[in-house]
């Protein structure tokens, strides 16, 4: 069976390599991909949208529908994770562990009916014992704000540099994931609760679709940002640039919230109490 598999793989690979001979060579100006719409994008995108990065202009303006449904797919992934994994009923674990922050000793509290009061010197830790790691906690605590600022920079500068909503959203989500890994999941959820990121995720998609619908209300086609010129008090070309920025912010919000949502659900088995 194994040998058969290897033979099939080698045959398919040989077929693919053979078919590669018919490809146009790299950066061939006569290849079909460079002949239909690419020249128009390259020539016109700067004067039509005033966005130097052509990829962003194509992604958010010329191919706006495509990106909108991509965002919807990301949103759907978050929702699917939520419905598959989340256990809404709260069943408390029978054993809780607390750490005395001054000495580092741990205490087990077993089978109590009422939850012990929150004390200053005790912090709750996970059932799977994790050490109080001063280095990782301090370094990640310093790193997280810079990571968040970098994510916002990537979203805001999608016009001039590589990047945009997807990448910036992932970096923003990664900053919260870093907080959840270095401290614990409860700290991260305390900073951004489930309700917040469950609202932010559809809100991002709504910003995208709402901008398109607003353009339609104002008398142009769906996602034709030139219509926003009247509201923003700028000429239509700048309005298209601003419209792209608004859409990117929507994408960034949706992607960030989805990343946090998926991570929280997977790492805590849908219980939202203890994570990785």
């Amino acid at each position, binding site marked *: 069976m194994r040998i058969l598999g290897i033979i099939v793989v080698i045959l398919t690979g040989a077929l693919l390599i053979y078919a590669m001979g018919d490809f146009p060579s790299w950066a061939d100006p006569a290849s079909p991909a460079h002949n239909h719409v690419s020249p128009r994008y390259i020539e016109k995108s700067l004067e039509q949208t005033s966005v130097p990065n052509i990829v962003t202009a194509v992604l958010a303006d010329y191919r706006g529908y495509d990106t909108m449904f991509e965002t919807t797919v990301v949103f759907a992934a978050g929702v699917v994770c939520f419905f598959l994994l989340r256990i809404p009923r709260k069943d408390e674990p029978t054993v809780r562990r607390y750490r005395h922050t001054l000495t580092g000793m741990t205490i087990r509290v077993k089978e109590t009916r009422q939850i012990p009061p929150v004390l200053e010197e005790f912090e709750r830790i996970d059932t799977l014992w994790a050490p109080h790691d001063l280095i990782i906690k*301090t370094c990640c*605590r310093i790193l997280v704000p810079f990571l968040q600022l970098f994510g916002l920079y990537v979203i*805001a500068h999608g016009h001039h540099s590589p990047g945009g909503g997807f990448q910036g959203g992932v970096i923003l989500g990664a900053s919260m994931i870093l907080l959840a890994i270095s401290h614990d999941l409860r700290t991260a959820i305390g900073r951004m609760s489930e309700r917040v990121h469950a609202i932010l995720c559809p809100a991002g998609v709504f910003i995208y679709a709402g901008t398109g619908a607003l353009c339609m209300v104002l008398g142009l086609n769906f996602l034709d940002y030139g219509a926003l010129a009247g509201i923003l008090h700028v000429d239509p070309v700048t309005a298209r640039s601003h419209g792209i920025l608004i859409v990117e912010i929507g994408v960034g919000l949706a992607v960030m919230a989805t990343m946090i949502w998926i991570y929280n659900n997977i790492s805590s088995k849908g219980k939202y109490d203890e994570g990785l």
Partner: protein
Amino acid sequence: MKAQAQGKAIHHEPARESDSRPVVPSHGTARSLLSYAMAFFILFCLWVILSGKFDLFHLSLGVISCLMVTLFSKDLLFPEPRTAGSFAIWIRFIRYIPWLLYQIFMANLHVLYLVFHPKMMDLIDPQIFRLQSSLKGDLALVTFANSITLTPGTITVYVSIDGTFTVHALDKQSREGLPGEMERRIAKAFGEE
């Protein structure tokens, strides 16, 4: 011996532990405002370096982003408002960096010599040992731990709360160099002499 050391640490600890706890609500409004301003200033400097565009539109975007990050996670950057205001620590810490870089360079040469030595197995003698540090603050402890990791043949394995370091050392020479001058310099930089 170790329990004794821990007990000693506990006795004089509560006073400093209670004000270096991670998230303590601060009551001094002026201090708190100062730390907000400091966090905003640092983040905005970073934004200017990252952005490189000085027109009004991008700068206002930067102000909005920095305000959002400052409000959302200022207590991560400065958990206790006191440290934000003390410029002396910043200046002394910057003066500590060149010495650290020099030490890192020497450490790299030492490890390089070990790596390419044909009889490397005879030269190295890995061991795990403990050392007691007299540093107090969280940041000072973390700086010391990371400096140990970056300099000659030593890696910090674990730092306990009362300042006991567990260190893995590659050979005898690197074991002897600790704690030594590095701890003194860090204590000086963080004003803990």
